């Protein structure tokens, strides 16, 4: 062999080697194509761990038994929550998405508007699935512009947890928890023990835990969105009132001292409500399992978020859904899986293991959630629960409201002007 030929071979080898490496890097990693034996593989991206992960696994197992021709390939992808969907985002824009994704319903509006979710309206109609099966807010949150984009899976609601022993200690009646804002303030004051700048115990912190402005705004009777004009209404006088109340609270107890207190606390077993340092806290049903796990002796109860006049108690709910990202390969098989997951059978399996509420009322009843003294309260309020507005700028609105609360309670501007700014900024984006 001549030297030149050898050299050429070597060059060719390098070239092919590099090329193959590049191609391997670019090629589809999802493996969502059908395999040889007539079985369709559906790739399912989710962010479920621990008990919810086990629950999803059980659902998949049951589904595969009933549908031997479909195989579900579940892939864990972290951070699939409030605006943290980078991985799905790039997968969709790269044209290589999974067939099904576990998806925060709150994000459906903006993703559907970007044209990155498959329209499920027709598939649902063909399968005879209607909104009557589900809680109204769950269906509404999964739809955008009159079309269905996701199948609801789970939900929650928010109530105020309170420490019964603390109530008794300061002479409050635990069977008669606060109903009005004034009663709540009164109870908070009685329960708080402050020594100089340090809190030994705080009665209540409106914005702690799940005390988002959404909850208080609705409790005060405000509306965050006008579906007619498709504009946000954060400057609703009732919402301004709610934020004013939070701000007054911050001033009364000194917000930096409260921050000093809350920053000293942790999550899980270190949560101040679990360590008896906070007497009342807005939270969701998941708190129950945390209490069972870390402080089973805690003597506690729940009551709805108080309102100014003590009537029309409400709350808000979020939750998850399953969606088909735009460009998914096996839509039909994916739909079968979603139908099962979101249907009564799948819901029963998932909800029972995950201890997350089902989006179907009868399932919650069947699983005994309604009879539980604590969880029952959460289920009871679901029919009047609100959902965050379905809109293209859901994440922006959420962030803006959260910083409005931060800024108002820290004294950077009045609630009125801050919410005026939020309204202006979000509406400007909505009109683009």
């Amino acid at each position, binding site marked *: 062999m001549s030297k030149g030929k050898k050299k050429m071979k070597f060059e060719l080898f390098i070239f092919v080697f590099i090329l193959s490496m590049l191609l391997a890097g670019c090629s589809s990693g999802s493996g969502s194509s059908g395999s040889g034996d007539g079985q369709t593989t559906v790739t399912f991206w989710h962010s479920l761990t621990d008990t919810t992960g086990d629950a999803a696994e059980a659902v998949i197992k049951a589904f595969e038994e009933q549908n031997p021709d479909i195989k579900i390939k579940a892939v864990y992808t972290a951070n699939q929550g409030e605006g943290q969907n980078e991985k799905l985002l790039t997968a969709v824009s790269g044209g290589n998405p999974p067939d099904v994704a576990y998806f925060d319903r709150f994000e459906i509006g903006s993703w559907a508007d970007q044209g990155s979710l498959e329209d499920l309206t027709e598939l649902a109609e063909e399968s005879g699935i209607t909104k009557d099966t589900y809680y109204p807010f769950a269906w509404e949150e999964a739809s955008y512009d009159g079309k269905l984009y996701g199948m609801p899976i789970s939900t929650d609601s928010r109530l105020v947890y309170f420490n019964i022993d603390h109530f008794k200690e300061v002479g409050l009646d635990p069977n008669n928890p606060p109903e009005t804002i004034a009663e709540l303030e009164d109870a908070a004051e009685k329960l708080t023990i402050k020594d100089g700048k340090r809190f030994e115990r705080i009665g209540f912190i409106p914005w702690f835990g799940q005390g988002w402005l959404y909850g208080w705004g609705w409790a005060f009777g405000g509306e965050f969105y006008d579906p007619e004009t498709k504009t946000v209404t954060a400057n609703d006088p009732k919402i301004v009132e709610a934020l004013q109340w939070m701000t007054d609270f911050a001033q009364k107890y000194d917000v930096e001292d409260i*921050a000093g207190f809350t920053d000293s606390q942790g999550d899980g077993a270190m949560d101040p409500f679990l360590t008896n340092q906070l007497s009342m806290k807005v939270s969701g049903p998941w708190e129950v399992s945390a209490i069972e796990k870390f402080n089973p002796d805690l003597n506690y109860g729940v009551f709805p978020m108080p309102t100014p006049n003590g009537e029309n108690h409400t709350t808000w709910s979020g939750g998850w859904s399953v969606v088909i990202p735009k460009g998914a390969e096996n839509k039909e098989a994916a739909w079968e899986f979603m139908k099962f997951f979101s249907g009564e059978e799948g819901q029963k399996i998932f909800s029972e293991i995950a201890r997350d509420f089902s989006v179907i009322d009868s399932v919650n009843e069947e699983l005994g959630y309604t009879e539980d003294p604590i969880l029952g309260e959460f289920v009871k309020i679901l029919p009047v629960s609100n959902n965050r507005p379905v809109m293209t700028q859901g994440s922006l609105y959420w962030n803006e409201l959260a*910083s409005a609360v931060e800024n108002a309670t820290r004294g950077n501007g009045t609630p009125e002007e801050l919410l005026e700014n939020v309204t202006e900024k979000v509406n400007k984006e909505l009109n683009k």
Partner: protein
Amino acid sequence: MNGNAQKLDPIKSSETPYEKQLKLVPKKKKSKWSNYKYGILFASPWILGLLIFYAIPLFSSIYFSFTTYSILQPGEFVGLQNYKDLLSDSLFWKSVYNTVYFAVFFVPLSIIFGVALAMMLNMKVKGMAIYRTIFFLPTLVPHVALAVLWMWLLNPGFGLVNGVLNTFGIEGPAWLGSVTWSKPSLIIMSLWGIGQAVIIYLAGLGDIPEDYYDAAKVDGANWYQKMRHITLPLLTPVIFFNLVMGIIAAFQQFTLPYTLTQGQGTPANSLTFYVMYLYDNGFKFFKMGYASAMAWILFVIIMALTALVFITSKRWVHYQGK
């Protein structure tokens, strides 16, 4: 492969050119391509990577900054609208303020502490290797772990920092929970990780010839005069390097505040840094066009500052042998 092995052989490689000269030179001059061929081939993964994952996105972001690109949709061409919107975006200005605040305090402090530490670690004391290792160790800690660690240290209730302050009778602030103290807290945290710069300063110190100090000693200079007139001037090339790198890093501050505040920039946006807001716009709010515009503004700012440092460097940077 044979040809290659020959070249690597030290004995033969010294012979080959000589042989080749005898035989091959009259034949013809090798073309440039055949000289660079292997080099380019071996570098090609890097070159391709640089082009595909760096150059193309970089230059397309110029175009995107003039559109409403959202990653999922190409968007429309809107001219300078993104830039105009930015100028009236209060959170943008807030993030600029936070970032400049951080850079103005952090960069000089990191140089002062870095040089001071390097000088101390340059003393001839027993077990210096151990001290040097100790000061370098924090840089090995990932930013996320660093954030968690410092959240504990600065914990207003049980934190070590407030605990120590307490023994002196000082009631410490809420640190990360306080609007006034959140940025200083972040500066303190970042200063903890200057080991990398210290290593470079140490190398710079090692480069200063002993002769100067000997001469100064003969002239009766004290330690301050030596530091002021020998060490610092001859360390300026290294300080210059660290200044430029420090400015760039300070303006790109992201991981630490993002982890500390779960991306929220709390309290009250006092930790919303420029790149954090950029990231939110691009990946949370579907405003990649807007985010691209922000990126280019940042690029111009950093470029301008770097240029400024380079221009002034002629006056204060002293290279040895010049």
